[in-house]
C-alpha cells in the first residue's frame, strides 16, 4: 500500500520563524560580526549571501556531559595495523581521538558558529541604525506611487471594470447549455402563426397546427423569461491589484583623485567607502545609478574598473571633477527628479590656486542640487602621525571645512585606516545626524 504526495509546492521556509528567532537572539554578536565583515576584509563581493561567524558561546545549549579529561574509557576502534595486546601508546594531545572523539557532539564547543545570512538580513543588520540624511526632498524620498496590476477576473467590481467579452462568452455558453430559444427561433414561430392566422378559411388541420404553434411559442417564450440573456452569474469584472511602486531613485557620484599621490592604499580605502555608501543607498532606493568621475588635472567619467584600477600621473585639480559632475547632472540627472548623492575621496592634495574655485562650485552650484555631499579625506597613518590632527590639515580640507560651516547637507571626515571606514560612514549618516541636521 502506498501513497505518493507531491509536497514541493508546500510552503517552504518552515524554518523562517525559527531562523528569525535565532537571529534575534544572537543579534548583538551578529551585529559585531557583520561590522567586522565589512571593516576587515574586501567587500568587493557583496552580492548574494554573507557568511558570518559568531562565538558559539552565547548560543550554546548546555547538556550534562562527561568530562573528557577524566575517567576510564574502553573503546573499540577499527583498522588495527600492528598493535599487539599490551602495547602502550602515548596519549594524543588533549582531546584527541584516543580520548574520545565525541568531545563536542555539535561540533561547536567553544569555537565559532558559522552560518550565512541572506543579503537582506545582512544589510538590515548592518544599516540598522543608519538613515539617509535628507533635508530637502523628504517628500520625494518616501513617496511611493501605486500602480495597477492585472489580477485576473472576479465576480464583483465596479461597472467601469466590466469585462464585456468574458461576460458575453459566459452568457453564450450558459444560453447554449440551457437551450434558451433564440430570437430567430421565436420570430420564425411567430411568422408561422401569422401565416396560418392569415388564412381566411382554416381547416381543422390548420386549427390544430395553430394551436400547436401557439403552445410552442408560449413554452419557448416562457423559457426565455426563465433563462435570462445575461445572468448575474455570467458577469465578470477585470480585477486590478494596487501594487506599491517606489518612485524613488538616486544617483551617486563617486569622485576621486587618481593622480600619483593617491597610493593603492588610498584607493583601497576610498573603494571601501564608496562600496559601503553604495550598499547603503541600495537599501533605500529602488534604483541607484552610479557615476564614477576621476580626475587628475583633468576630469572624466569612467567605468568602475578604470575608476579603481587604472593609474594616472599628473597634477591635481579638484574643481575639474566638480565641473564634470555638474555637467552630468544637467545632462542626465535633473535635480528635480533625482536624489543626488556625492562622495568625494581624496588625499587632500590640490593645486592651491584651485581651492577657491572648488569652494565656489561646491557652495553655489552643487550643494543646492545635492541631497548630500560627503568628503572623505584619506590619510595614511604616517601622515596622521606627522600632522597630528586637523590643525595642519591640507588645503582642500581647509577649503571644504569652510564650506562645512554653513551647509547641512555637507560633511567631511578623515579616514586613516580600514577600521575607520564604517564609523565614518555611520557618523556621516547616523540617524540623529539626519534628524538634527547635524
Amino acid at each position, binding site marked *: 500500500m502506498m501513497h505518493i504526495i507531491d509536497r514541493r509546492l508546500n510552503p517552504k521556509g518552515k524554518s523562517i520563524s525559527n531562523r528569525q528567532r535565532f537571529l534575534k537572539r544572537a543579534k548583538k554578536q551578529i551585529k559585531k560580526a557583520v561590522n567586522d565583515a565589512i571593516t576587515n576584509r574586501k567587500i568587493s563581493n557583496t552580492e548574494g549571501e554573507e557568511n558570518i561567524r559568531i562565538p558559539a558561546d552565547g548560543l550554546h545549549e548546555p*547538556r550534562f556531559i562527561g568530562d573528557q579529561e577524566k575517567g576510564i574509557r574502553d573503546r573499540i576502534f577499527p583498522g588495527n595495523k600492528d598493535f599487539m595486546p599490551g602495547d602502550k601508546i602515548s596519549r594524543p594531545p588533549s582531546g584527541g581521538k584516543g580520548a574520545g572523539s565525541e568531545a563536542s557532539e555539535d561540533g561547536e564547543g567553544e569555537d565559532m558558529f558559522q*552560518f550565512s545570512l541572506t543579503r537582506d538580513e545582512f544589510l538590515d543588520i548592518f544599516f540598522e541604525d543608519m538613515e539617509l540624511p535628507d533635508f530637502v526632498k523628504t517628500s520625494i524620498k518616501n513617496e511611493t506611487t501605486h500602480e495597477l496590476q492585472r489580477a485576473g477576473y472576479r465576480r464583483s467590481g465596479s461597472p467601469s471594470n466590466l469585462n464585456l467579452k468574458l461576460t458575453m462568452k459566459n452568457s453564450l455558453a450558459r444560453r447554449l447549455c440551457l437551450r434558451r430559444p433564440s430570437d430567430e427561433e421565436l420570430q420564425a414561430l411567430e411568422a408561422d402563426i401569422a401565416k396560418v392566422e392569415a388564412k381566411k378559411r382554416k381547416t381543422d388541420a390548420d386549427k390544430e397546427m395553430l394551436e400547436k404553434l401557439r403552445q410552442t411559442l408560449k413554452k419557448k417564450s416562457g423559457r426565455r423569461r426563465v433563462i435570462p440573456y445575461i445572468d448575474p452569474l455570467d458577469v465578470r469584472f477585470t480585477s486590478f491589484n494596487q501594487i506599491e511602486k517606489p518612485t524613488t531613485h538616486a544617483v551617486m557620484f563617486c569622485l576621486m583623485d587618481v593622480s600619483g599621490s593617491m597610493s593603492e592604499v588610498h584607493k583601497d580605502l576610498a573603494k571601501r567607502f564608496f562600496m559601503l555608501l553604495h550598499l547603503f543607498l541600495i537599501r533605500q532606493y529602488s534604483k541607484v545609478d552610479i557615476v564614477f568621475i576621476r580626475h587628475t588635472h583633468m576630469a572624466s567619467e569612467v567605468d568602475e574598473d578604470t575608476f579603481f584600477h587604472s593609474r594616472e600621473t599628473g597634477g591635481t585639480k579638484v574643481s575639474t571633477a566638480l565641473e564634470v559632475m555638474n555637467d552630468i547632472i544637467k545632462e542626465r540627472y535633473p535635480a528635480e527628479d533625482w536624489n543626488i548623492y556625492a562622495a568625494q575621496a581624496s588625499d587632500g592634495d590640490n593645486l592651491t590656486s584651485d581651492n577657491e574655485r572648488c569652494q565656489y562650485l561646491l557652495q553655489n552650484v552643487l550643494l543646492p542640487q545635492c541631497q548630500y555631499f560627503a568628503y572623505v579625506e584619506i590619510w595614511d597613518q604616517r601622515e596622521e602621525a606627522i600632522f597630528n590632527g586637523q590643525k595642519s590639515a591640507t588645503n582642500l580640507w581647509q577649503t571644504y571645512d569652510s564650506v562645512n560651516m554653513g551647509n547641512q547637507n555637507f560633511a567631511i571626515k578623515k579616514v586613516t585606516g580600514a577600521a575607520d571606514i564604517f564609523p565614518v560612514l555611520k557618523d556621516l549618516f547616523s540617524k540623529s545626524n539626519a534628524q538634527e541636521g547635524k
Partner: protein
Amino acid sequence: MADVSKKEIGKELLYSQAEWDFLTIERTFKAIEDIALNEMGLDVYPTQVEVITSEQMLDAYSSIGMPMMYNHWSFGKSFLRDEIMYKKGFSGLAYEIVINSDPCICYIMEENSMTMQALVMSHAAFGHNHFFKNNHLFKQWTDADAILDYLQYAKNYVAKCEEKHGVEAVEKILDSAHALRDQSVDKYTRPQKLDNSEIQKREIQRLEYEQSQYRQLWRTLPEIEKEKTDDQAEYERILSQKLGLPESNLIYFLEKHSPVLERWQSEILRIVRSIAQYFYPQKQTKMMNEGCACFTHYHIMNRLYDTGQITEGSMLEFIDFHTRVVAQPEFDSPYYGGLNPYALGFAMMKDIERICENPTDEDREWFPDFAGSNKTVETLKDAWENFRDESFILQFLSPKLVRDFRFFNIYDNMKKRDLEIKNIHNQAGYKAIRSALAAQHSVANMDLDIQVTNVDLKGDRTLTLLHWMNNEIELDDKEAKRVISHIRRLWGYKIELNSINPLTNEVVMSIDG
C-alpha cells in the same frame, strides 16, 4: 538468500533514465514492495511517500526530522548550521527522512535520480519501516499512530502559550527543558500513551482546576498525624514515597513537583519530555535500524537487477552510493569519525546471512543455533524484533567480523600516562572486543545517570541531585553549572548536585546552583 534465489529474468525495465516522474516512482515502488513483502516477508506500516525540495529537506532536518515542530530558536540555529554545511559542500543532505508513524512517512528529495529514489524507498519505506513496526523497543515505547497528532498538538499549544505569555517566557522554559532532554526519559517503566488532543484538553482543564485549588505538596497547614513522627528516617521514607524518589526523569519530576511552575509551563515540560521519550528507542537501535535498512535496500536493489528490472548503469550508480554509505574509515584515517553505524549494521546483517547459508566451522561453534540453518530471513527478523544495539552485538558479532574490521580495544585511563592496547582481533580478543563494543552501545555509557534524590520540603526547598559516576568519569563542570542554572529556573530554589563514585561511595564533585 536461499529461499529467493530463483531468477526471473526478462521482467520489464522499470525505468531507463535518471529523471523520475510519479508514474515511474509508483511502478518502481510496486516492484520493490513485491520483493520486500513477498520475498523477504517484511511487515510494514502503509507508506506515504512525499516528494520535497532540498530546502524543505533542510527544514525538516533542523526540526529533528519531524514534519512539524514547535518553534524555537535552536531549530533555527541548526537550520543555519546545516544550511552552510550543505552549501559549502562539507556535508550532503540526507537523501531521505523517514518518520516512525502510521502511515510511515518517507520524504524523498526532488533532486534525487530515479535510482536514488528506488534506493531510498527500499531503504526507508521498507527497511526502516519494518524496523519501526516490529522492533520491541519501538513497539513498547513509541506510539506510531499518535505521534503526528501529538506534534500538531504540541505546536499549537506552544504557539498558544506564546500568544498568552509572550515568546520570551516560553523560550526560557523551552531552553531549560531542552537542557535536560537527555535525563528525561522513562527507562524502566513504560511511558504513558500520547494522548490525543481532546483528552489532553480535558486533562489540562482538570489540572488547572486542581492547581487553582491547592498544591498538596507545598501545603503549609501542619499535618496532624504525620507531624507526630519525629523519626527522621520515617519522615524521609514518607517524603520519598510522596515524591517518587529517587527519580531519574528530571523533567518529569520538575513538571510534577516544582513549586514555581505554572500549569502551562509544566505542560511545556511535558511536551519536551514526551518528544524526548519518542526518540529514546532510536538512540538505542541506531546501528541495527540502519543495518536493517541497508540490508533491505541492498537485497532489493540486487533483486531488481537480477530480475532485469533495472539497468546495469543504475546498478553501478547504486553500488557507488551504497559503498560510500557503508564505508568504515580506519582509526588513523583523516575521515575517521567514530564507528559508522551503517557500516557495522550492514556488515552484521550480511554476516548473519553468510552464517545461515555458508557457515565455517568457527561459525558453527559460535552460533550453533542458526549456522547453516538456511533461515536468513527468520534469523534476521527475529534479531530486528527482539534486540537493541547492545544486545545485538553481544549476541551476533562474529569473530570473522572482528577480523574483517580489524577491531582493537584501547584502554584509556586518564590517570595513566599512556593508552593501553587491551585486545586485538585474535582468538583471545574476540569475546572481550565483543563485550567492549556492546558496552560502548549501552544506555549506561550513552547517558549519564543523574537522579533527584532529595527535597528539603520543610526548609529552604533545596533540590538535591545525585550523579552516579560511571567509570570514574566526572561531569564537565562548566556544562553542568549551566545546566544547573536551567534546573534552578524550573525549580525556583537552590540546587545541589553531587557526583558519587559508586565504587568508593565518596562524593567526588559537588556543584551548587
